[in-house]
């Protein structure tokens, strides 16, 4: 079983970190994982994206150029760029705060998460990526909330107050 994911959004929306967290959760599950960022000039201010592959066996290419299983899109340009590359029957988790039009494909499953608005209401726009994790928990069986908590506990071991903020953001998205 292999799951090929793309995380995409504006620079600053935390999509690279979100991809890393999901890759780390999968690694902690004992899976093979790769995380591959787009790098270079486009990472400065424009659209940022990363590819995450999770598999039971060895992973070939770390790039996800076609046949996306799960697209996590935090802004409109990400939908324009990556939705056509989602495989039929694939999953699209999208930030409905910024992506307000209906998705122009009916052959994919989709879950709307009001990530930016929820984060804004919490007074911390930096957690909009964490709100998106709620979408994963609702729409996929990739991991459980307890596995998310365990990974975040490691990540924020030196700063437990950040752990609480991030867990609260996920809770708000549920």
């Amino acid at each position: 079983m292999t799951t090929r994911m793309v995380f995409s959004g504006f620079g600053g929306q935390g999509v690279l970190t979100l991809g890393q967290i999901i890759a780390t959760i999968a690694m902690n599950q004992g899976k093979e994982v790769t995380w591959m960022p787009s790098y270079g000039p486009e990472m400065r201010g424009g659209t940022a994206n990363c590819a995450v592959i999770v598999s039971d066996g060895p992973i070939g290419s770390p790039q996800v150029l076609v046949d996306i299983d799960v697209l996590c899109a935090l802004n409109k340009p990400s939908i324009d760029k990556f939705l056509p590359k989602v495989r039929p029957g694939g999953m699209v988790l999208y930030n409905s705060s910024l992506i307000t039009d209906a998705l122009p494909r009916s052959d994919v499953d989709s879950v709307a998460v009001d990530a930016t608005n929820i984060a804004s209401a919490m007074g911390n726009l930096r957690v909009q990526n964490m709100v998106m994790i709620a979408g994963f928990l609702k729409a996929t069986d990739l991991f459980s909330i307890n596995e998310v908590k365990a990974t975040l506990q490691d990540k924020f071991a030196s700063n437990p107050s950040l752990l609480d903020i991030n867990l609260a953001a996920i809770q708000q998205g549920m």
Partner: protein
Amino acid sequence: MKVLMKGNEAVSEAAIRAGCKAFFGYPITPQNEIPEYMSQKMEASGGCFVQAESEVAAINMIYGAATTGTRVMTSSSSPGIALKQEGISFMCAADLPCLIVSVSRSGPGLAGILPSQGDYFQATRGGGNGDYFIPVYAPNGVQEATDFVQKAFDVAEKYRTPVMVLVDGMLGQMMEPVEFKKPVINEYDKSWVVGARSGRERNVINSLNLLPESLEQTNITRFRKYDEIIANETLFESTVADGDEVAVVAYGTPARIAVNSIEELRADGIKAGLIRPITLWPFPEAAFAKLPASVKHIVVVELSQGQMVQDVKLAVGGRLPVHFYGRCGGMVFESSEIAGQVKKIVRGE
């Protein structure tokens, strides 16, 4: 315990764990995470970090530090490695060990920063002057990159030679789970080092030799060392089995893409296997010596216009057709693209 790390950071951590005590480098994309990591961690581990004024200066600092027998390392990317060739030639001539991590970008010239394998010749043939080679490792993932960094220090000290770990920007930038192994630390003769003399005869590290009879002998002796490296250190991986019609040849991250292509080909009824050179110098000629009789085609895929393919042709020696498919300029082939090319070749299109 596994940790998720970027290739560039993982090789840096591996070097520190292997006892690297000096890093001299210069900023260039896509390897900047290496000097950044070193600047943060080197001092705490009792080592030194210097951001040099140029790649030329950096490699010459490496040359200086290596004369003391210290484990030293530099890293750079294509145009920067070009500038380091002067120092690499001098280090080969003075038989000095060091690790050079090359995270290649596209070329020629300033070109782009995306993945490329256009530096195969630069790594295996060098641009420095004179008769020399350096061992070059081409890992296919973050775990291998860390393993080879640690191995490279040992090989460098064992044979007293610079050693290169060559990766493309994709491997430098990607994250994968890594488990750091306990590094091999062997004790080798260090009677040749300079500094801290305490009574011994003075040592001279030098490459100037104006006496042709003597210089010829020195160079021949160095090539006997290269014979040993060829015999002991050549590495490759092959999945080509009896019944396979095609041997696909690729190194580094493109070899991972080729693994997917081979699966796709098998699903389409074309049996193929992969030959993956792991050391690029010495080139694993043995991988081509005893191919199963079923193999009718060799297909070399590279992120260049064709460099390793020349070594493959030398190794195959005209016994089989050697085909080439490459992308360059930072364009990376998809697995289906390679599979499509192989199908065309097999079907004689």
